[in-house]
Every structure is written in C-alpha cells, then in structure tokens.
C-alpha cells in the first residue's frame, strides 16, 4: 500500500469510526428514557452495534497509524475539531420521533453504503461492512416501522414526525458529498462512491415518508462541515460527557 493510499485509508477508517461512535453514544442516551421498556432495550442494542462498529474501525485506524495510538485514544483523546463525523450523527436526541427519523435516514444510508463497502479491495473494511450489514437490516426494519406508525398516527405524533423530517433534512446532503481523500479511495477500489447512492436514498426515503403521510421537504438549506471538523455545538457537549471518565482517570482499568 502506498503512503498516500494508506493515509487516505486511515482518514476513511477514522471518518467511519467517528460516525459510528458519535451515533452510538447519541442513541445510548435513550437508555432509561425510552417510551417503554422494550424500546429502551432496543435502543441499547442498536447503540451497542454502533459502538462495536466504532471499535472495529478505530482498531483498524490504530493498526494503519502504527504510532502507538489505540482505539481508546481515537475515541477519548480527540477534541471536536479533530472529529470527522457527519453532522447528522451528532444532532441531539430530542423527542422519540426526531431520533427515529434520524435513524431511518441513517439506516437507509448504511443499507446502501455497506453492500458497496463489502466489495472494497481493503479486506478489513470489507469484513467490518459484512458484519454490519446484517445488523443494519434489523435496525432499518425498526426505524421504518416507527416512522410509519408515528407519521400516520395521531395528530400530535404526525406533527412531531414532520417537524423532525423538516429539521433534519438539511443535514442529509452532507452524507453524499466527497472530497479528494474519498475520491482517491474510490479510484483505488477501496472507498465507496457515495454520490452514486444519492438517488436511491431519496427514492427509498421518499416512498416511506409518503406512505407515512409525511411531506418530503424541498432542498432549501444545507449545513456541512463534519468531515473537516466544523461541528455544531452539540458535539462538544456529547464529547464532554463521553470522554469525562477517561480523561479524569487516565489509564484506569477495571
């Protein structure tokens, strides 16, 4: 592997790891706050799947970096400007409808991305993707069911779900944008050409929203910056909570 490709792959593993880590933490905030016990447990399970993915991507990043940084260093010792996750992942949990709409957007995204990443020439990325695909199918079924139920539910649940769709829509464009790093990896058969998945994503999301009697928003605004470390204030708060123990008790084991 040439150094340029290796550096790009490292950056890619960090991006994918950050997406999984930040989302996993965000979802875990539902534990003990779910609308009922089964949903609490479901969220805990989905969060664990994402935290497990983050460990695999960070583990690979640590292998590629080969400079003594461990998976814990990637998760706990970087500040928000060094995080590379999509902004959508860091948005607060808000109400149940908001979290489920975000989850639907993300589950459909991974439902398209992972089957492509499985074909990667990089064996480790392909193996992580193969593991994650099976889990995402279960996640998607749940988020889809909930969005249908809430959108086509009571006046209140419909209103909240539509509000969630409208507030999150502008954060979805960033998912389908690529920079030179990712283009280089696409050319080398390692990364996924995410721009090609955009139409499918819109088609799938559109059909579920329509079935849920929700409006598909116009593309009137866009926020981006996560991939270069420009985050919303939400990420700082999340990291404060997530990194507190590790930073207060360095090297602590139990």
């Amino acid at each position, binding site marked *: 592997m040439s150094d340029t490709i290796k550096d790009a792959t490292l950056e890619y593993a960090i991006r994918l790891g950050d997406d999984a880590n930040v989302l996993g933490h965000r979802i875990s905030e539902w534990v003990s706050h779910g609308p009922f016990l089964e949903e609490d447990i479901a969220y805990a399970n989905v969060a664990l*799947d994402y935290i497990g993915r983050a460990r695999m991507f960070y583990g690979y990043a640590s292998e590629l970096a080969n400079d003594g940084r461990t998976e814990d260093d990637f998760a706990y010792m970087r500040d928000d400007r060094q995080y590379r996750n999509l902004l959508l992942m860091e948005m607060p949990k808000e109400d149940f409808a908001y979290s489920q709409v975000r989850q639907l957007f993300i589950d459909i995204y991974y439902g398209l991305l992972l089957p492509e990443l499985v074909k990667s020439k990089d064996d480790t990325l392909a193996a*992580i993707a193969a593991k994650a695909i099976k889990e995402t199918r279960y996640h998607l079924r*749940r988020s889809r069911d909930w969005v249908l139920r809430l959108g086509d539910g009571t006046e209140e649940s419909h209103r909240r779900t539509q509000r969630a769709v409208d507030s999150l829509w502008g954060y979805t464009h960033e998912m389908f944008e690529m920079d030179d790093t990712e283009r280089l990896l696409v050319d080398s058969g390692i990364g996924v050409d995410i721009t090609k998945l955009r139409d499918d994503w819109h088609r799938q999301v559109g059909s579920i929203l329509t079935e849920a009697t929700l409006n598909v928003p116009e593309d009137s605004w866009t926020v981006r910056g996560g991939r270069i470390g420009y985050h919303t204030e939400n990420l700082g708060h999340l990291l404060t909570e997530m990194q507190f123990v590790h930073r207060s008790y360095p090297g602590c084991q139990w």
Partner: protein
Amino acid sequence: MSEISLMPEEQYHRLQQRDTSEVKELWDLLDEVKDPEIPALSIWDLGILRDIERQGDRIVVTITPTYSGCPAMDTITEDIEAALNAKGYESLEVKMQLSPAWSSEWMSPEGRRKLRNYGVAPPEDADASEDGLTPDAHALCPHCGSRDTRLLSEFGSTACKALFQCQACKETFDYFKKI
C-alpha cells in the same frame, strides 16, 4: 414416517475441521468455555470458536463475535486463556476474526437443543418473514411447545435475541434471531 433432518453445509465443515484437527484435545478442553450470557451453551455450540492451531509451542485460538458490539467477547477471551492456562498452556494467543461474518447457521445441533431446554427458542423454531427477518408470530414456545405466540420486541435481552410471548402458557421467551 420419521423426518430426516439435513445437516447444513456450514455445520458439516465445522465438524470436519474439529475431527481432523491436530489438537483435538484442545477443542474438547474449550467445550468448558461457555457464553457468559447463555451459560448453557459453549463457544463451540454457538459457533464463536472458529479455529485452534498449534504454531510451534504456541496455541492460537480464533474466535468471531456474534454481533459487532457483543460485550461478551472480552470475557470469553479471558475464559479461554484461563482454561488453557489451567492445563499448563502458557504461550497462547486469542485472535478475533471478523470475516466471514458469524451466522446463526453455525450453531451446533446440540447447541440448538440446549438452547431450547434453556428456555430460548433457536432460530429454526420460527419461519422467517418475507424479508428473512424475525416473524411477527408463531415461534415455537420452548416452555409448552405451542405455536400460538407473538413478537413483543425485535430486540430482546441481548442483540442476538428477540422477545416473544406465548398465548397458551402466557410465558414470555427469548427467540435467537437468524443472522
């Protein structure tokens, strides 16, 4: 007429691998390592144990996680080391292998029986829904054998299980999902 159950291809290869292994005694030894979340089943029963090799005087054990975030993997690694240490094997390594991704097909036939006796319905005790995932109803109740059951939640006490309720005996039970 009695039913002849077929052995899945995956299962056959696993048995072959164990039977022809140069370190057969170590496979037997690791039968005592159980899944901390389902202590009735060994890591062999679940298909978490992928391989055991002797490399010089070193023992290399390969395991694979059921789910990405399976929190039991660290405990399982420690238990494997402890079991081997107790028999005098000091030089060893437990490797985690992701590919091929774990499948519920790998569970051994004894594992499936033990699971049912433990009160958890194994994957084949429900017909998959059209999309290949957990069905809404009719998983076989491990307590009373009724099919009059319904899905309460896709996500049970751990990521690998869904929660069902039996209408006949009123008990709830876990169903081990197909993956």
